[in-house]
């Protein structure tokens, strides 16, 4: 046991003391921070500034006044602000408070960019303009972009039968931006509704106040406390846990693979085997890299919990999920780690490892393909079957546990049992392959040869 721990300690220190590990460890929180602070500003759809000309043909002339108003920069800005308010109303109170606080210049900047005004220039065409001719206007090369030709239907404002209204047709060039289209449609919607209500002698403000129902307060009730319901979190929780476990498994597994390949290629392997048995070496390596994975997992869980605490959102996560994450991580790490270390033992360099790693990586990334249907239907036949097929079962069960309809407890423990069986099988396979592969140089074996080795050893 002492030798196993010595190998484990060396593996651990050799991995965590490298610059690559430290940079890799810090890069994820940095990336998350960057994505929180910068990406929304870069990718925010409301950050888009629509610029260009929009030609309007209103044969009846009944809507043109309202269209002018709806396309004015002030109205465009007001509509965007209303959209932002709507989104913020759904956010947790702490986030809402942070967003509306004057003390946060970043958030103020984000709000400002989110409500960037548009520069849409309205070109009014005569009511009798020929639509076919006007279409060619769209395609003329000009400095100012021509975004759309909008043709309002004759009955768009005044209904002929008192029940149905016409609408409008939009002609656009091939490279129109969807966000500009949305801007134009929002303005046309507002203009036509205004024109129709006025034409009908109705008060739009009054109608709106009648039909608008503000979203009511939703309170999540738990045994210990009550808090505002936060929507959306249940949707992202499963993938968050899958990513967390994937990173832990990959960090340890990848290090196991590279350190084994390095020991083989630097010919230090046989020197080690003069001091300990292959099984002691294998066990030491797996334990050492388990420690490395735990550092990664611990750091990210710590950051996650700290964020939840700072926003007073700790109650969002069932505390029982953390020990289950631990159990399924151990099962998953031991299974994948064993297989990766055996790959490292049979190849001569990392290039050769790629081809053998391909099937393993396909299995390891499989949960990313199926997390959404599984989290939406956690108790479907597919989800249940996946929970009992190692090595996918650990990820599958974690997705189900973090979903809105967790599986029955017997299934959780049965899945853990199946996972343990998978671990034993993977360790058995790895021990056979590791022992033979360590001193094999030359052409790396294919999968069939590995199976033959496992059966022969």
């Amino acid at each position, binding site marked *: 046991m002492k030798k196993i721990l*010595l190998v484990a300690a060396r593996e651990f220190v050799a991995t965590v003391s490298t610059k690559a590990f430290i940079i890799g460890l810090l890069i994820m929180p940095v990336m998350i921070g960057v994505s929180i602070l910068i990406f929304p500003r870069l990718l925010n759809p409301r950050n888009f500034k629509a610029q260009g000309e929009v030609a309007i043909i209103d044969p009846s002339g009944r809507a043109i006044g309202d269209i002018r108003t709806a396309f004015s920069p002030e109205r465009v800005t007001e509509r965007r602000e209303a959209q932002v308010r709507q989104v913020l109303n759904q956010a947790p109170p702490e986030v809402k408070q942070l967003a509306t606080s004057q003390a946060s210049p970043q958030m103020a900047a984000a709000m400002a960019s989110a409500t960037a005004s548009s520069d849409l220039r309205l070109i009014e065409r005569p009511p009798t303009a020929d639509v076919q001719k006007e279409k060619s206007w769209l395609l003329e090369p000009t400095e100012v972009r021509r975004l759309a030709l909008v043709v309002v239907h004759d009955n768009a404002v005044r209904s002929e039968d008192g029940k149905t209204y016409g609408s409008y047709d939009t002609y656009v060039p091939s490279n129109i931006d969807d966000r500009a289209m949305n801007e134009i449609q929002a303005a046309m919607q507002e203009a036509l509704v205004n024109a129709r209500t006025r034409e009908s002698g109705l008060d739009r403000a009054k109608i709106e106040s009648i039909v608008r129902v503000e979203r009511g307060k939703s309170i999540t009730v738990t045994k210990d406390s009550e808090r505002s319901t936060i929507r959306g979190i249940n949707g992202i929780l499963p993938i968050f846990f899958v990513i967390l476990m994937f990173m832990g498994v990959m960090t340890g597994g990848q290090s196991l693979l590279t350190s084994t390949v390095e020991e083989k290629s630097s010919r230090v392997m046989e020197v080690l085997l*003069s001091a300990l048995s292959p099984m002691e070496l294998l066990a030491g390596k797996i334990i050492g890299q388990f420690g490395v994975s735990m550092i990664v997992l611990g750091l990210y869980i710590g950051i996650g919990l700290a964020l939840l605490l700072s926003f007073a959102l700790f109650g969002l996560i069932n505390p029982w999920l953390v020990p289950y994450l631990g159990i399924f991580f151990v099962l998953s790490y031991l299974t994948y780690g064993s297989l990766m270390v055996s790959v490292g033992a049979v190849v001569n360099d990392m290039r050769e490892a790629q081809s053998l790693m391909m099937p393993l990586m396909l299995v390891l990334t499989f949960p990313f393909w199926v997390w959404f249907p599984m989290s939406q239907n956690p108790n479907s036949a597919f989800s249940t079957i996946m929970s009992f097929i190692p090595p996918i079962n650990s990820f599958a069960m974690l997705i189900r546990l973090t979903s809105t309809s967790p599986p029955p407890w017997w299934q959780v423990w049965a899945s853990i049992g199946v996972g343990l069986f998978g671990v034993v099988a993977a360790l058995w396979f790895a021990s056979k392959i590791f022992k033979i592969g360590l001193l094999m140089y030359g052409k790396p074996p294919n999968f069939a040869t590995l199976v033959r080795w496992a059966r022969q050893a």
Partner: protein
Amino acid sequence: MNEAIRLKSVCKTFGTTKAVTDLDLTIPRGALYGFIGPNGAGKTTTIRMIMSILFPDTGDLSVLGQKSALDAKNRIGYLPEERGVYRKMRVGPFLTFMARLKGVPESEIPGRIKRGLERVGLADAERKRCEDLSKGTQQKVQFIATIIHHPDLLILDEPFSGLDPVSSRSLREMVLEEHARGATILFSTHVMPHAEELCDHVVMINKGKKVLDDPVADIQRRYDPRVIEFDPLDPQADLSTLRSIPEVEDIVRTDHGCKVVLHEGTSAPSVIPRLAIAVPPARIEIARPTLEEVFVKLVAA
């Protein structure tokens, strides 16, 4: 139990290749054995079986009185043919790691590392990264790692390969020091002069089979070429007169004289006085067979 290593009818096959066939070998404690043979003869496979890195298909094996070397690993020093160091580790931590694996008491480790490095002229290398050392220097570090736990049995697989003459001599001296300390030494090589110079006993294998297992002196005696090198005092002397001696089978001319080939079963020392009487010599010497000659002869056979 006076045997350090004992192999009995050991066989090892890889696929259809018979690497070692029916090998018997006994190495007494305190001996210095050379394990020689051409490339691919089965030396490394045999050594790996002794070290329990590989296991024989059939046959019995014991090392330092144990059924498996795994039970005696802390008493064995092994320098494999395929050897290396952790490139990114510094020399000191690498040797410390190896010493701990070999069960050296923690308090003794720094002293042994210091003395070992000083012994090979690397006193200032402790803080250097292994990857910054030359191949020869790395081999010296590996040798220190091999003997840092003062093993009872030292197994060296091609220890001199890749070393320059100075490093090679230094390593030879250290091997002899370990032998003088009382360690049993088995080293494999295909460089015959090394074996001849160091060993008191040689085991030779070819194609997985043992073809020789004798003390060096016995080998030289047994494979005596029955040749006396003879340079006459007078370069113009008639060497054909040597043929008149009944024990002489043939005379082969050389640059300065001739080689006198004797009949089988003839004792060379008994012939020398009569040769000297027949033709006064400037130099007369019994030619000893080198291991290389024996090696070539046996392998060719």
